[in-house]
């Protein structure tokens, strides 16, 4: 073998088998973006369970020639493409996450005060207003719906709906949803203070009644009957959510319930995070749309917070026992962060005011409300 042939071979290897000559500026930018999200997750602990796998997914998938998100020449999906195809595209992982969430959720505060369900509905205002806004900016109806649902502050619901209606926006939507959910303590308090007077923030609510085990056991069945009969399209999400809760409350399948809450939840979270992160390749992500989605996501959260508090104000006009309007902001879902924000803001006005359990009601109602909104959108596009 001559020296020239050796050089040619080295050149060929460098050009075709290494990533360096194929690395472009877009990929470098995306890798820097992945560092930013990893920093948020690790240093600031902003939704680390999701942002670590998402950030790492973005990081991995933006290396040139990396066999992760493509298909082999036989048409088989490569590693993360397989996670994405069978987990997200087939809409399995978001439903499994709902199963785990159901197994983790204690519906006691919502059962004790069912009126808070209305707050969960009112807090979906932003979902629909953002939907209109995005349409004005040239998004299609399906894209607008998937962007609108970000305001529901429910990650799995956002991913489920986006994967179904606008998979090309999955990465941006999921990232916006989880980022803003983590920023709830920054976004909500100014709106909460703007929409309430100090007297209103000091309203003390009566302690919630105790809820019996039988009531908790029957709740998932009753809720499933009503919700699935009225919005059948939401059955995969709501069915899994209520199944998980039923396992928790029945008490006879402790092992299954614990698996759903821990092992299964952790596994699907890893797969979901990596898959979502891996959809953010430079050529897809670096455009106007994701930027606008981040803008609209913020607007969405603001209007949803506004809608929740406004709903409490309207309800207070008709209720004998007034509710503290600060719990309205918890209607955006983001369990339990939004409820904690209500508690913190309430205590700033009156250190003896304990709102957390009252805020958990609208918080859980927000989960049901955002899933219902997703179901409404799915039905609309059927």
């Amino acid at each position, binding site marked *: 073998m001559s020296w020239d042939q050796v050089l040619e071979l080295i050149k060929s290897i460098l050009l075709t088998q290494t990533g360096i000559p194929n690395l472009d500026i877009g990929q470098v930018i995306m890798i820097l973006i992945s560092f930013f999200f990893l920093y948020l997750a690790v240093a600031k602990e902003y939704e680390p369970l999701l942002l670590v796998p998402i950030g790492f997914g973005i990081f991995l998938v933006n290396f040139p020639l990396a066999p992760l998100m493509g298909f082999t020449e036989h048409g088989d999906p490569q590693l993360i493409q397989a996670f994405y195809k069978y987990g997200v595209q087939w809409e399995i992982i978001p439903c499994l996450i709902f199963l785990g969430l159901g197994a983790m959720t204690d519906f006691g505060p919502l*059962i004790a005060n*069912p009126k808070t*369900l*209305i707050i969960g*509905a*009112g807090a*979906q*205002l932003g979902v*629909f207003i953002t939907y*209109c*806004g995005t349409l*004005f*900016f*040239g*998004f*299609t*109806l*399906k*894209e*607008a719906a998937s962007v609108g649902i970000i305001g529901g502050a429910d990650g799995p619901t956002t991913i489920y709906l986006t994967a179904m*209606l606008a998979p*090309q926006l999955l990465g941006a939507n999921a990232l916006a949803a989880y980022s803003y959910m983590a*920023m709830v303590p*920054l*976004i909500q308090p100014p709106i909460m203070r703007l929409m309430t007077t100090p007297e209103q923030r000091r309203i003390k609510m009566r302690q919630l009644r105790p809820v019996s*085990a*039988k*009531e908790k*056991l029957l*709740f998932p069945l*009753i*809720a499933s*009957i*009503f*919700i699935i009969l*009225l*919005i059948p399209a939401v059955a995969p999400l709501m069915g899994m959510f209520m199944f998980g809760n039923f396992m928790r409350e029945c*008490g*006879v399948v402790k092992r299954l319930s614990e698996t759903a809450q821990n092992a299964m939840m952790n596994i699907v979270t890893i797969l979901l995070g990596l898959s979502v992160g891996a959809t953010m390749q430079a050529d897809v992500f670096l*455009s*106007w*749309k994701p*930027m*606008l989605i*981040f*803008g*609209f*996501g*913020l*607007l969405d959260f603001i209007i949803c917070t506004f809608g929740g508090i406004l709903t409490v104000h309207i309800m207070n006009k008709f209720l004998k026992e007034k509710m503290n309007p600060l719990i309205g902001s918890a209607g955006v879902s983001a369990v339990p962060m939004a409820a904690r924000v209500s508690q913190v803001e309430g205590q700033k006005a009156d250190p003896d005011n304990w709102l957390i359990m009252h805020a958990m009601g609208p918080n859980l*109602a927000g989960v*049901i*409300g955002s899933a*219902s*909104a997703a179901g*409404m*959108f799915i039905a*609309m*596009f*059927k």
Partner: protein
Amino acid sequence: MNRLTHGFFKNAIRAWLILAGLLVILAPRTTVYAAFGEDLEKPKPEFTREGNMITAKLIPRAKSTSVSIHFTVSGGRLVNVEGMDFQEAARPGVDNKDFKSELFTIKIDGVPPGGEAKVSVTSDFFSSSTEYWIFNRNLKEPWMNADAKNISLPDMVQELLVSVKDGGPFDSDGAVNGRITLSGGPKDSFWGYALGTLFIRFFGIFLVLSILMIGMILSGKIFQMIDKKKAKREKEIQVQPEVPAPDIQPTEAIEPELAAAVCAALHLHFSGRRSGAASSPSITPAVSPWVRQGRERIMNARSIPTNRFNRLQNR
């Protein structure tokens, strides 16, 4: 250093939030729209012919499932129906989102020269407000409403009936030759649909959650009533004058070893009864109150792990 990082981070987040807000307010709509590029929802009709009827099967804009649109003609022969790219008919003020099921070019022959044919377009995808719009590139104002009759048929099917004259303004070939070329498509108001359905669906969520709320309030009342009754019953049982328990005393003082032996004998006796001749008839021996009390305690202690009520309470 840490404080410095914290300050930078806080400011960066604030700056991002402001930037995100400004992005929505200031982004130039037209530039953004143009940057979005390809038409992702462009319907791709597939045509099949059955006798005099041609059916187009397509996934319309803003839908995930396919619909069928049927074309028939009276007063002429339906030669062909094909899809037409909206780009060919794009004009200022005409939005392709209004044409959810794409445009069609319908070719008819066998019409008496200068005569009229009626084109029927039916589908369960149309609504009572669906119109049929015609595109004729030879005219100064190429887009016009065909003033189609919108007829409601059974099974929620709507029929659009368009009258078209050979050589008339709807006929794209413009000649009186017994042949008609009709370009256009069914039109629904995009914004009307988007806002209308939005309004309905937002209040739909209120309706669904209100119904759930009523269901929960009712079931809550029932449970509270049951719990109250139960508590009342328990209270009554507690209030009843207690029957003085018989003072059970060992008839005579016995040694601990003897007591243990008696207990062991009792245990063996009853375990033998349980595991042994289940079929053999036996008579329960008369037992003293002291033994009965002991047995009750053993049974209660044994039933704790299998008692469902206790398990729910202790969870």
